[in-house]
């Protein structure tokens, strides 16, 4: 690159300087890039990727946290496989951890203790791996909540919603497999519980259990099998599905929150190159750094303290990792009378319902929701602008109700820890949680919906009447008014740019000839559901309403009265009438209009 340059002033262009854009493939990087492109043809795809625009919002980074956690898991997991021995073979510990010396254990457990105490950096990598696993699933769930509450699962993203749910379910199983590998007392207890769950499956249970464990529990087959599942099978499926998940995000383009200039046809944000490369790349290191920091400071799964697994032993406070807690909690809440004898067999529905049936049922409901909502609204359009949760009150309330149900089950899994830490009776806690599992979801539904509607009303207030400035103005005849400042167009846009679905009208059950319509029952159901979803609703303020609010006679009169005797430019806004002047233009005036809609 070094060529002789004639003397020149520092700021002048050289005579032979090329001011046109650099030719494609210029420079060393460009040369390599075109070399690769000429042989693979990836430049186009790469350019497409680099120009991809992403909107900026912290809640869009929850999925990123999950993604980076996955990368951390793959990296640290690979490290762990270098030393972990996936074998149930018997051995006697002779490592450096004194309190286990001379104890008989499996090779899997011995190698995990070795990783913790005798492999350089082994313990921190193990702890990073485990903390990252917990945070991975926390992030997945929060990401899922974000997608649900903003309506990002709507067309065209239904498939991605289902891929995401599948990823979550696989992550749960993957986590459980990892939790079971070290063969410490806790993981062995978890496997014993899992065996019990399998046995509770009517008719098939014992066959499934014998198949999975290669004979009676625990056997020697389960650890190598789980290892293959944990390091090969599930990671491959998870990475594959995750790739599909990301590709679909690219294809659909990212959703964005409503705002000025944001439409269903554009994405407002920054391009991948250079902004998001830097932001996302930086965020990866932040996530890795925070995870490593936590792993360096806080113990997770101290397998050396649990001791090796022996089927005769168990410890108080045997719980699964948090993500399986809800299933454990369901087990703890299900009443004992669900186990009964019939036809000379024992049917353990107290276990089956919580441990086996619950997960598929919950995931099926979650997977069906986008289709249910689409069927009820009949909405076939694409949606790239997100809903603010308050603008879909019933959906938000249903989501919160589901979360509250999940939370009850989740907390039930810790009922013993709550009992000792809060000095309560475990029986009382369990009974209260049983009751809560039934009562809390409807209560949360109702409260959330009311809050959403209230927030929507507040938005309407703000749009129609502006911000209360707190400035009191006295008119010439002694009346007091508070100056209201109208919202600027940017702020207002966010508050008015949404659609409020109307409930369906039931068509006539029969046509003009008195013949029953086909599918009338289905239509009736749809109408009823639509009523449940959309009967209570607040419409967005229309431009006409806004104009009316600003030009009602009384309003102008007040304004005129105020202006007469003061300096109008000081108000910077409208004046709003006293309490006795409430008219239809007032904050709650729309309530009357609403009633007529019902």
């Amino acid at each position, binding site marked *: 690159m070094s060529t002789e340059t004639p003397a020149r002033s520092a700021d002048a262009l050289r005579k032979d300087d090329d001011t046109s854009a650099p030719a494609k493939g210029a420079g060393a990087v460009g040369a390599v890039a075109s070399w690769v492109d000429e042989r693979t043809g990836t430049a186009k795809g790469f350019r497409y990727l680099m120009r991809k625009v992403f909107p900026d919002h912290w809640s869009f980074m929850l999925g990123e946290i999950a993604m980076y956690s996955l990368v951390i898991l793959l990296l640290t997991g690979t490290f762990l496989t270098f030393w972990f021995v996936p074998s149930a073979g018997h051995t006697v510990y002779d490592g450096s951890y004194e309190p286990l010396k001379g104890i008989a254990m499996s090779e899997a457990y011995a190698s995990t203790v070795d990783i913790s105490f005798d492999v350089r950096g082994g313990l921190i990598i193990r702890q990073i791996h485990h903390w990252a696993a917990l945070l991975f699933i926390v992030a997945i769930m929060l990401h899922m909540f974000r997608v649900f509450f903003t309506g990002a699962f709507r067309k065209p993203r239904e498939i991605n919603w289902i891929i995401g749910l599948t990823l979550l379910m696989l992550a749960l199983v993957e986590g459980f497999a990892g939790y079971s590998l070290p063969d410490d007392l806790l993981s062995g207890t978890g496997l014993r519980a899992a065996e019990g769950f399998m046995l509770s499956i009517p008719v098939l249970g014992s066959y499934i259990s014998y198949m999975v464990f290669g004979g009676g529990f625990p056997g020697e087959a389960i650890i190598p099998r789980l290892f293959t599942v944990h390091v090969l099978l599930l990671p491959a499926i998870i990475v594959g599905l995750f790739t599909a998940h990301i590709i679909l995000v690219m294809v659909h383009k990212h959703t964005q929150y409503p705002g000025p200039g944001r439409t269903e046809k554009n994405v407002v944000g920054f391009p991948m190159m250079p902004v998001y490369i830097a932001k996302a790349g930086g965020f990866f290191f932040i996530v890795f750094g925070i995870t490593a920091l936590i792993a360096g*400071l806080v113990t997770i799964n101290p397998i050396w303290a*649990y001791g090796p697994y022996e089927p005769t032993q168990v410890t108080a406070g045997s719980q699964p990792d948090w993500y399986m807690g809800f299933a454990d909690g369901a087990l703890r809440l299900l009443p004992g009378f669900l186990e009964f004898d019939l036809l000379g067999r024992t049917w353990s529905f107290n276990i089956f319902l919580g441990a086996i049936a619950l997960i598929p049922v919950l995931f099926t409901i979650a997977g069906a929701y986008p289709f249910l909502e689409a069927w009820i609204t009949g909405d076939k359009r694409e949606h790239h602008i997100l809903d603010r949760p308050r603008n879909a009150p019933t959906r938000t309330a249903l989501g919160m109700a589901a979360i509250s149900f999940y939370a009850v089950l989740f907390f039930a899994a810790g*009922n013993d820890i709550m009992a*000792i830490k809060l000095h309560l009776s475990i029986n009382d806690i369990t009974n209260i949680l049983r009751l809560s599992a039934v009562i809390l979801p409807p209560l949360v539904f109702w409260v959330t919906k009311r809050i959403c509607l209230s927030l929507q009303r507040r938005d309407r207030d703000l749009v129609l009447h502006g911000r209360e400035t707190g400035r009191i103005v006295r008119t010439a005849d002694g009346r007091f008014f508070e100056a209201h400042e109208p919202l600027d167009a940017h702020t207002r846009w966010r508050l008015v740019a949404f659609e409020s679905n109307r409930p369906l009208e039931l068509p006539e059950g029969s046509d003009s000839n008195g013949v029953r319509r086909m599918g009338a029952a289905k239509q009736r159901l749809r109408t009823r559901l639509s009523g449940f979803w959309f009967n209570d609703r607040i419409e967005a303020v229309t431009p006409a309403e806004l104009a009316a609010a600003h030009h009602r006679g009384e309003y102008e009169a007040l304004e005129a009265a105020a202006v007469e005797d003061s300096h109008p430019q000081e108000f910077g806004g409208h004046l709003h009438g006293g309490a006795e002047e409430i008219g239809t233009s007032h904050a709650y005036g729309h309530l009357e209009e609403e009633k007529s809609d019902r």
Partner: protein
Amino acid sequence: MSFLAARRRHPAAIVLVLLLGLVVTGGLYTALAPKDAKAATATADDVKAGKDLFLANCASCHGTNANGTAAGPSLVGVGAAAVDFQVGTGRMPLTQPGVQAQRNKVTMDATETKQLAAYVASLGPGPAVPATEYTNGNGNIAKGGELFRVNCAMCHNFAGSGGALTRGKFAPSLRNIEGKHIYEAMLTGPQSMPVFNDTNLSPQDKNDVIAYLHNVDNEANAGGHNLGNLGPVSEGMFAWTIGIGLLIGAAVWLGRKAA
């Protein structure tokens, strides 16, 4: 530390150190000296003094002849070890009735405890206060750990952090408990606890368990803060609060950064 370091040559320092030394020595002596006491060495005077103590502090629940009332069990045959455990850990005299007597401030001094134990031991044969050689925790830690996991962990948790039982009862935490009291609890089976007599767990086995528990108390935690050694519940709580909180905080911060 620099506060202390800066004042180590202060004229009052020598006085303070001497005072501290005296208090520690005296305190240790009063705490440790009666440890050798055995029920067998009790005198008739001890029994008589113990009876007076019993009538004053215990008889309202256990009955004037210690043969029990509706409010408290008979103490005939529970032995000196039971008294030494219950009174020595402050569980008795009971401050208030409840589902379970809890560890509390110790209200009787060593002599009074010894006298009370002598009286109760005189009511009928029962386990005596163990000899120091089996309660000093010089046993085999690894074997003690295994015995602990087989016999104790299902209620007291793998690290002796405690666990829940039914209806508000609980297996208490075993952190920082004197070896003697651990031994006596195994020997006498207080409250919901089963008895581990010498045929279940030999005195040496019991000392191994004590060694294991003392090791848990003293062991440096290799992995960092242990979150109370309560298992995955506290880990999950940490992940959902501080863990994800830090990450979301970082996301919010990064989201606000101008591009």
